[in-house]
């Protein structure tokens, strides 16, 4: 009788533990999913910024701005003086 009672309480305890574990699993799964989505969104944002940076720092764009807007040019041989 006493043993049955103990087993009964053990059964109750494990049943509650199982339910709790399932609950924890669902919670963690949900958090993991949220984190995945956040990671994906941040990465997409980073990619977008990288592409923008690449576009802005493109050699063609820099060359056009340097020559047309800033009036820069490569000095010719006569203009170059080498300091010994």
């Amino acid at each position: 009788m006493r043993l049955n009672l103990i087993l009964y309480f053990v059964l109750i305890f494990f049943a509650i533990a199982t339910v709790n574990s399932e609950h924890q699993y669902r919670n963690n799964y949900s958090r993991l999913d949220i984190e995945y989505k956040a990671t994906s969104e941040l990465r997409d944002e980073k990619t977008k910024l990288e592409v923008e940076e690449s576009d802005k720092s493109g050699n063609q764009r820099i060359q056009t701005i340097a020559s047309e807007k800033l009036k820069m040019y490569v000095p010719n041989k006569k203009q170059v003086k080498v300091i010994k």
Partner: protein
Amino acid sequence: MINTRKKQTEFFELSKIRRRLVLIIILSLFFSLFSRAIYLQAMQKDFLQKEAEDRSDRKVLLHAYRGKIIDRNNNVFAVSTPIQEVTVNPSIFVASVKEKIKLVRLLSISRKDLERKIQKNKKKVYLNRQLSPEKAAQIMALKIPGIISNKKYKRFYPAKEVAAHLVGFTGIDGYGLEGIELYSNKLLAGDSGYKKILKTRSGRIVDDLQDIKIPRDGQDIQLSIDKRLQYTAYRALEKAVEKYAAISGSAILLDAKTGEILAMTNYPSYNPNSKGKPIDFRRNRVVTDTFEPGSTIKPISVSAALENKSIKPNNIIDTSAGYYKVGRSHVKDTRNYGKISVTEVIQKSSNIGAIIIGEKVESKYLWNILNNFGIGQKTGVSFPGEVGGKLRHYKNWRKTDHESATFGYGMSTSLIQLAHSYTVFANQGSIKEVSILKTKGPTLGRRVISRKTSDEMLSMLESVVKEGTAKHAKVNGYRVAGKTGTSKKLGADGKYESNYIGSFVGIAPVSSPKFVIAVMIDGPSIDSYYGGTVAGPVFSTLMAEALKIYSIPQDGLIESDELKREAKPDSII
């Protein structure tokens, strides 16, 4: 004891009324269960069947992010950007006229197109497969039944034509089809994951069934390429090909100390972002095409004679005959140079001189040297479609093959092989492994010729730029060494045509070589076809930019006593 048992029995015995009450409760419970079952099976049958059909247990693929391809300074060459794929289920699509007007505006399609698509008897019809996430969000905000938006990734190549041959591109399924995208596809692609979900027919996720395999993202690939030099090389090639109305042009720039490829480009090119990619221009001709190298091989055959101690740099070679009979044909120089030194043979690119020098070396020895320089062999660079070229075994050589080999005919090489072979002269006799991936510093080379021979040849090559056939390859403020090559192309009938390939391979700065550049212009048809004239300026522009970007100290003012000594001939052969 007996009394107690009797009392307990009396206590558990229910009265007649109670027994009937319990029976009625149990029966009523059974009745309600049965009636509910009959209601669901008979009355709600259609509704429940529809619901069951709508909801299904599906395996959803979890996207693995394809790795980026970046240059040595972390500039992006290829990246996956998010796009939205908007579809419609015509059977449940319902929208007002006002909503339809908004929809066609956001989808960038005509009203007629939309009407045609929603008339189709399909469950899924594509409305726009490459829509920006912002526009897709605006469409979804309209909450039109039947419209679904899915996130997809599209490969984007910011460097466009400049690095197209190098980076390659992917197909619609995201699989690499050309270049590094193809060669490193497995590394870049990663491993997709999945999860089990319960989904409605309209695409709404009802429940996650928690059976998950986490995706493994692809790795980023860092190339040894420097985007700035890649751009310079492309523009310089474009200019030369257009100026001389050539068929195409190719260039490769190597770091002499590490063997890393800093630039590798071809012109004409294509835009890997556009849908139509011309098949003729897709090849990376630096590694996939071979040609007879011509005079650019002379430094190697003369090195064989120097290494063999058959000649010295200041020996005199008599080329005054004006021609040399090789088999049935006569090999000539551009003019009769008379008696010239070995240095002048290289400087003036004398074919007769090269043959006379080459004859002093046995076929086996010459073949071994050419072989050790990597001629006719794949470099082993991590790139698809590399060809090995052709260098026949010396046992199969006839006399004419030996003679032709001394001035670069009867064999074929790729431009990358040519640049690779010149790393020997830039590293005091050791050849470096070529790498398209960024390395961690100088690498060990394999000795091919002695330091003395290499230094002697480097001085001879310097004289080619100073006073010889490659004056256009000069770089202001720096000592440059190099060799021009102008070879006739073989026609379809196996005979030499009047079409040429002009090439130049050079090294700078001579005092401490840092870069090796090989340039090839295929089929120049206006003004000139000589390697020094058509390929030399491309070399000069690219080398000047490389030396400037990497802040290499100028050495152009330093005078070499060694050169002066070599210029004085002391014996006649």
